[in-house]
């Protein structure tokens, strides 16, 4: 073993310098050319930062499209899912409560129209997206509150729907923050 200690120590030192140092600095340098310079791209409205492009934020006011439930209340200082098991009775009650709340705030919507992502928590607690149907099921409520024609809102959602990657891979989605910014800019 003794003959291996010195090489082990020296090799460890070299790998520290190379992988913690040089590799990190190299990627850091490349990040300066990336959007947001590797510091996270922000979204600005009227010169004011209102969020980060990738991270979801909490929308629970009736005048906005709601975002998904979150186990960390969209506080991006941390991240977590609920980690509730699929058959946990407390969890199922919680989902039932969310369904009831949704129905109260969205008169005229039937239970079967609510897509599951609106009443289940995401993996990160920071999910920025909804499915197009998750946004469209909220149109009636927002149209009534904002006194906007439902067709205008549907069109807005369609405009903000991201197609699958390359048009064929993965699901459709709508970024809730961008959709709500566009909603405020209507009229």
């Amino acid at each position, binding site marked *: 073993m003794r003959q291996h200690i010195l090489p082990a120590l020296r090799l460890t030192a070299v790998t520290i310098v190379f992988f913690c140092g040089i590799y990190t600095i190299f990627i850091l340098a490349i990040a300066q050319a990336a959007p947001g310079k*590797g510091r996270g791209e922000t979204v600005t409205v009227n010169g004011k930062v209102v969020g980060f492009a990738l991270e979801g934020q909490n929308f629970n006011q009736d005048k906005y499209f709601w975002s998904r439930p979150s186990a960390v209340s969209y506080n991006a200082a941390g991240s977590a899912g609920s980690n509730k098991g699929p058959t946990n009775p407390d969890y199922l009650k919680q989902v039932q409560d969310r*369904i009831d709340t949704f129905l109260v705030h969205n008169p005229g919507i039937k239970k079967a129209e609510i897509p599951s992502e609106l009443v289940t928590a995401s993996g*990160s607690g920071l999910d920025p997206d909804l499915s197009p149907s998750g946004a469209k099921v909220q149109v009636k409520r927002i149209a009534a509150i904002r006194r906007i024609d439902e067709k205008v809102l549907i069109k807005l959602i369609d405009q903000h729907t991201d197609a699958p990657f390359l048009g064929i891979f993965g699901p459709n989605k709508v970024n809730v923050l961008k959709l709500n910014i566009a909603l405020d800019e209507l009229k």
Partner: protein
Amino acid sequence: MNTEILGVLAMYGILVLLAIPIGRYIGKVYAGERTWPDPVLGPLDHVFFRLSGIKADRDMNWKQHLVALLTINLVWFLFSMLMLMNMSWLPFNPDGNPSMSADLAFNTTVSFVSNTNLQHYSGESGVSYLGQLVLMLFQFVSAGTGMAACAVVFNAMKERTTEKLGNFYNYFIKSCTRILLPLAIVVAIILVFNGTPMTFQGKDSYISMQGDTVQVSRGPAAAMIAIKQLGTNGGGFFGANSAVPFENPNYFTNMVEDISIVLIPMAMVFALGYILKRRRLAWVIFGVMTIGFLCFLIPSLFYEMKGNPSIGHLGISQSLGSMEGKEVRFGSAASAFWGITTTVTSNGSVNAMHDSFTPLTGMFTMLGMMVNSFYGGVGVGFLNFYVYMIIAVFISGLMVGRTPEFLGKKIEAKEMKIATMVALLHTFLILSFTALSSHLFAAHPQEYAGWLNNPGNHGFSEMLYEYTSSSANNGSGFEGLGDGVPFWNITCGIVMLLSRFIPIVGPVAIAGILAKKKYIPESAGTLKTDTTTFGIMVFAVIAIVVALSFFPALSLGPLAEFFGVK
């Protein structure tokens, strides 16, 4: 066709297309042949060798390999303990995160040195940026260690009689610089251009449209995420791992990261074919692994896309599938695909919360770790498979009345004893520690109430999963488990330590002993190992060992939960 399914097919297709040439490249690197990046990486290796005082051409026997491997791992262990317990006052700590307690530092150190990356802390609040960089170092070198051990076994499997099995440091350094580093740079660059942070600035904050003040964690994440995927490490920069938008911004990055998870484990099989000049054998191994993988993948895709029946009873639409713990931008299919790829390999990063998977998907993720050799971890996945092959050769030899020979070497009692011990160690560690924790929980329900996030069978699954993940050096979790306490830190640490090094020592010893034996050329009496029949035999050995060992435990956890759904 459904775009979510198309996405999954594309990921698997691209994966195989990349693994074949990269496997060939890895084979050339270990065989010491010329490769195209030589002009750049040759001088880099030379710097490593010079500064470390290593003579790369000095051959070692299998014992010397193991001593070198264990010595350097001990150095890493001490270095990591020192850093993690002193992070708070060291530089690069803009968020003022604390140092780790001794038991948490022990768990985290063992976890990263053993290529497991089980995380009983949350990246945003539990480590400084310096701590993250130290952990990233281990993501390179622990992967390099596993690959080097695998390279020794490849070398020992050649048709000749020798004790000289190459130089450990040579295999180790080249695994890091020639294989992991170039791929990591490519993946990291893709990530930063898709929005993953790479900065030393601390948390940012903004006021949301509804007027909430929100803090946003950032950091030098892209560099770490690239190597966490490629080296089957899996330890995320942020708490919720690759479910976090910053770690995995969109469907494209999800494809890149998920392909990175399986790329090297799969390529190692083709590297074996190249080094031994036995392509057929490589394809047989690949076939067995792929069939095993599909057995877990297909039902998981089905159940996740179908949705959670208990939620279905509430009367809402589940056209997107089961969405608890999943992200909309990936969807249920890509989440199930990731769940299986990350557990059959020993990666353990997640893009959806495994605790919230439907019961049978949860079981298949556990089975992936219980087998731990359908592709498996970088290097070590093949070592586990090698053990199963040795057992299969021996059993089939007995069945047909031929001397059990594997690639021209006679397998005798000593090798069989080592192989059996390694194969059963995994079962022993998982089941005995799950039994211990279940006993404690059942005997002191008040005291340990904080352990479980879910009642009943699912709660049992949380404990079973934790030890399965530790013993498979996987690192994912049913994260509802309250595991940040001394009991879990210490027991999981012990499990990870034993199940890392014994399954490396065992196969290297077997291969070393076999290499020294007389080479017997193939004859009519030789059991052919590059045939479908032998493939089926290996598959049967794996299925029987795993089914007999784990069926009772699984029936108490996910199976009972599945059949209990009304």
